[in-house]
């Protein structure tokens, strides 16, 4: 685009066409914002034509996981309870993308409220892995990973609480990074587990993911958990690509049974490649890792049960069962029964149980000792 070989409008239209061509099979998208995307593309082309300086990702199309609020654009978090909802504000990540001139093509499919590892828990139907449509694209961010693998978008945003960026990237052969907690603002990220959730960059190359990270990362006054420090220079690191002299720790406790043969051998190959490239491979021990899953099983459902209490049919989202003078409580019950899927209900109940009075300190409090 900088060289004038292609315009953002042409690039955006090409991706919109690709979505039209394959999305009936892949089902990565829940909403495609054709008008908005082309308008943003035009405004970037105009800025370039006027000789204005634009950022490295200006005019580049992107797919946005439907867990991020985008003003005026249908946002569902993969749930029926938010069917038809159009947020009145943008998430900080979205504001930053718009300010950088990134073209948001649409919202991608996901497991409902980010709870799941396959995107089969979406209230709007599953997404299929573009490499083999009979397989899952991973989850909860399967729509984002599939959109990249199907070349519907060169960039995507995902969110990761227990692997929901990383695992879909692994099963679609794309790149996905969960930034360090606090690295990217959670303002406007529909919350699942507030002490674990992170939005992050997804792409087909490490350099693209790094470029995207530098756009979305950084301190935000609207997110008190965001880190008030400069964004690490990941683009420079990606361009230099050197691991010479770097010490890379391999966690001893992740050695064990249950890996498929091919997975383990590729992992070991990657360690050899890193060593050949000049890195020092060191074994490290993280003895508390074996408690991580148990801690997650306490923290995530507990926080989820609290975060999802806001979906109560009063201020936004669907409302069901309000005829015949039914009480507010009854309307909340019926709406949540109809609006939430099975997995979400399961986690809310587990979390409510874990937090129930008398047990709070024993359960959630203990698990917080493992938090990081």
């Amino acid at each position: 685009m900088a060289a004038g070989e292609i315009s953002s409008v042409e690039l955006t239209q090409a991706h919109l066409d690709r979505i039209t061509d394959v999305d009936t099979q892949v089902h990565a998208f829940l909403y495609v914002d054709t008008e908005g995307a082309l308008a943003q593309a035009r405004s970037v082309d105009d800025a370039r034509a006027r000789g204005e300086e634009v950022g490295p990702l200006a005019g580049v199309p992107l797919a946005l996981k439907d867990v991020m609020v985008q003003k005026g654009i249908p946002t569902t978090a993969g749930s029926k309870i938010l069917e038809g909802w159009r947020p009145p504000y943008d998430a900080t990540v979205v504001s930053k993308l718009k300010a950088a001139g990134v073209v948001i093509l649409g919202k991608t499919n996901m497991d409902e409220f980010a709870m799941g590892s396959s995107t089969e828990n979406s209230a709007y139907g599953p997404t299929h892995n573009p490499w083999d449509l009979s397989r899952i694209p991973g989850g909860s961010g399967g729509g984002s990973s599939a959109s990249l693998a199907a070349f519907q978008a060169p960039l995507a945003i995902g969110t990761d609480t227990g692997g929901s960026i990383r695992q879909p990237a692994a099963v679609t052969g794309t790149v996905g990074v969960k930034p360090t907690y606090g690295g990217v603002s959670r303002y406007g990220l529909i919350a699942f587990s507030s002490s674990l959730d992170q939005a992050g960059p997804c792409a087909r190359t490490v350099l693209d993911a790094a470029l995207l990270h530098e756009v979305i990362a950084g301190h935000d006054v609207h997110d008190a958990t965001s880190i008030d420090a400069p964004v690490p220079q990941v683009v420079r690191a990606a361009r230099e690509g050197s691991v010479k002299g770097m010490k890379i720790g391999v966690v001893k406790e992740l050695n064990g049974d249950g890996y498929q043969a091919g997975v383990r051998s590729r992992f070991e190959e990657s360690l050899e490649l890193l060593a050949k490239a000049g890195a020092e491979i060191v074994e490290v021990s993280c003895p508390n890792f074996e408690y991580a899953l148990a801690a997650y099983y306490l923290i995530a459902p507990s926080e989820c049960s609290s975060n999802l209490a806001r979906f109560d049919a009063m201020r936004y989202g669907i409302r069901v069962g309000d005829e015949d003078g039914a009480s507010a409580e009854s309307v909340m019950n019926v709406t949540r029964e109809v609006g939430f899927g099975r997995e979400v209900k399961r986690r809310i109940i587990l979390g409510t149980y874990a937090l129930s009075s008398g047990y709070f300190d024993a359960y959630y409090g203990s698990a917080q000792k493992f938090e990081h």
Partner: protein
Amino acid sequence: MTDPELDALATELDVILEAVARVQEVATPDVAPTSHPLPLRNVTRPDLVTPSLTPAAALSGAPASEDERFRVPQILGEEA
């Protein structure tokens, strides 16, 4: 939830008890609970009034609204 759904879930609550037992093996009293990898304390910002959502924007997603307010079912229903 329906009764069959509740019955199915009741058996799953054990996973919480198992997780607690596991975690308590090492969550000793001298380990402080944390919710963040960094020691953030008292994160504040200047107490300045800035524009926020207009009533129209705030009500834009409401199932029902009236007179710039959310219209909600009565707290005590017919059955009260």
